[in-house]
């Protein structure tokens, strides 16, 4: 589906990847025969219905969940374990509750053995950037959901990962906060142009953020369609009311709707259990 790229430009490369795992005694085939590539400096959104296995793709790239078949390389190396080079932003509640905001953000630096003064300096800058000055010594539990997600983002960015993986990072936020966070992410990304994979079920979010959208099928996940988003950057919340945006949105919604009807509710009734478990 994606054009073959020159090897040096491929940041992430999945070839015929399948992921099968056990969940509460059941065998789940989450991803089947999935091939995709992400170019260096590209922002790719993975859009799909809830429970389609799109998060599994992300956890596989992060190295949290092993793949069952196919090959998965990041910057040319086979992935077998999690690493700080692939920063992962989780949906919510992944901050250490017993660490202050300062300590949470500097966690990765501390793991790498960066000296204290340097940590304080780096963290101070990023805290200013995400607008949380004055909250350095608060605990995550004292912050609102939106603020916690800013910290979550900062904690990953401070590691300067080569790849940014985001698993519905704004999914649990209210609509207004979500837009603010999207704009913050856009402003950060415009400066760094970091290779990013962003998983979401929100069509608007996918179009607003991505260079390219991969629309997923129902579980087991595979790529159903690819939508190129040629909206001009820098983008902001106003982009979402442009006619071009609406056109893309209509296209994505159509693709999503088709994938829901294909499998969706009726899959269970026909008792089509995913096969191929070993």
């Amino acid at each position, binding site marked *: 589906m994606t054009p073959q790229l020159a090897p040096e430009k491929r940041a992430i490369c999945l070839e015929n990847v399948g992921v099968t795992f056990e969940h509460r005694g059941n065998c789940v085939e989450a991803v089947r025969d999935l091939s995709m590539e992400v170019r260096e400096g590209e922002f790719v959104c993975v859009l799909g219905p809830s429970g389609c296995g799109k998060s599994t793709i992300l956890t596989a790239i992060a190295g949290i969940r092993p793949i069952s078949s196919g090959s998965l390389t990041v910057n040319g190396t086979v992935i077998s374990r999690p690493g*700080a080079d692939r920063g992962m932003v*989780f949906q919510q*509640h*992944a901050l*250490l509750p*017993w660490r202050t905001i300062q300590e949470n953000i500097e966690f990765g630096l501390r793991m790498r053995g960066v000296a204290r003064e340097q940590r304080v300096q780096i963290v101070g800058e990023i805290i200013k950037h995400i607008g949380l000055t004055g909250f350095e010594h608060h*605990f*995550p*539990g004292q912050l609102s959901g939106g603020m916690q997600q800013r910290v979550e983002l900062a904690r*990953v960015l401070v590691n300067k990962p080569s790849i940014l993986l985001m698993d519905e990072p704004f999914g649990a936020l209210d609509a207004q906060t979500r837009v603010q966070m999207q704009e913050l992410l856009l402003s950060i990304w415009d400066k760094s142009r970091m290779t990013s994979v962003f998983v979401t079920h929100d069509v608007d979010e996918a179009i607003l953020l991505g260079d390219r959208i991969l629309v997923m099928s129902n579980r087991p996940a595979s790529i159903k369609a690819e939508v190129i988003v040629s909206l001009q950057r820098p983008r902001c919340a106003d982009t979402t009311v442009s006619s071009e945006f609406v056109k893309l949105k209509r296209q994505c919604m159509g693709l999503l709707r088709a994938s829901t009807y294909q499998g969706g509710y009726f899959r269970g009734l026909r008792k089509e259990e995913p096969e191929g478990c070993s």
Partner: protein
Amino acid sequence: MATASKTFPVLPRLWPAGGKRHGPRFPVVRILLRSLSIVVFLALWQLASIHHLKWPIDFTNVPSPSQAALALLSLLHAPKIAKDAWFSIIRVLAGFGVAAAVGICLGLIIGVSHFAEDMILTPLEVLRPIPAVAWVPLATLMFASAESSMIYITFIGAFFPILLSTIHGVERVDKRLVTAALCLGAGQKAIFREVILPGALPSIINGLSIGMGTSWFSLVTAEMISGQFGIGYYTWESYNLQKYPEIVVGMVLIGLLGMGSSAIIRAVGQYMTPWAQIGGGHK
């Protein structure tokens, strides 16, 4: 919901407003209420023993609070009580200390390793329901000195709550935190130190607080073994000598010491886990 705000909540403490519709409940009011409850309790007891209540409890030989108070006063004038308290405190602290060290270590190991769980937990589960008093004969055989046997009994009392709370605490640690830390470059040791240990800490502290109480719980049993000093021994001795008010004094002293030491542990625990005291946020 209009109806909900008018009806009285069924469980006021679990109601979001915390039962605020009682009117304001200042700490002073609560302290007064709690003191009042003790006074009422003592008064009822006094009345029951003055009138020699026969049913459901036979108060004929049960000393009244005033008799117990007199016995306590005379005891406080005797120098022996300090020594009794001192011996008991040392025994409980020794048993509790060993139980804390062993219980937390084993609990952490069992919590993180399935192999350890299978190897260690099963025999412990068999030992767990055995009450401290059933250990007395064996404890005297197991240790050369009576002192060690007594400490062992208080250890048994404290060990299982600490062990089980630690295991529970480790199992309860949010897996997302482990995953997140791994993705930020943490290794196995760092995961244990930065995620597992602090994550289990509130539960461990809870176990320590309960274990401190149950350690005092088993004190009389321990000091039945032998001894010349100790509040448990004093209580048991008073029974043998038919000094009934003194039994009550011994019981009250154990209760107070147990409550006090548990409160100290809880206070230290709260100081050590400031994040767990935040209301509203997660955890």
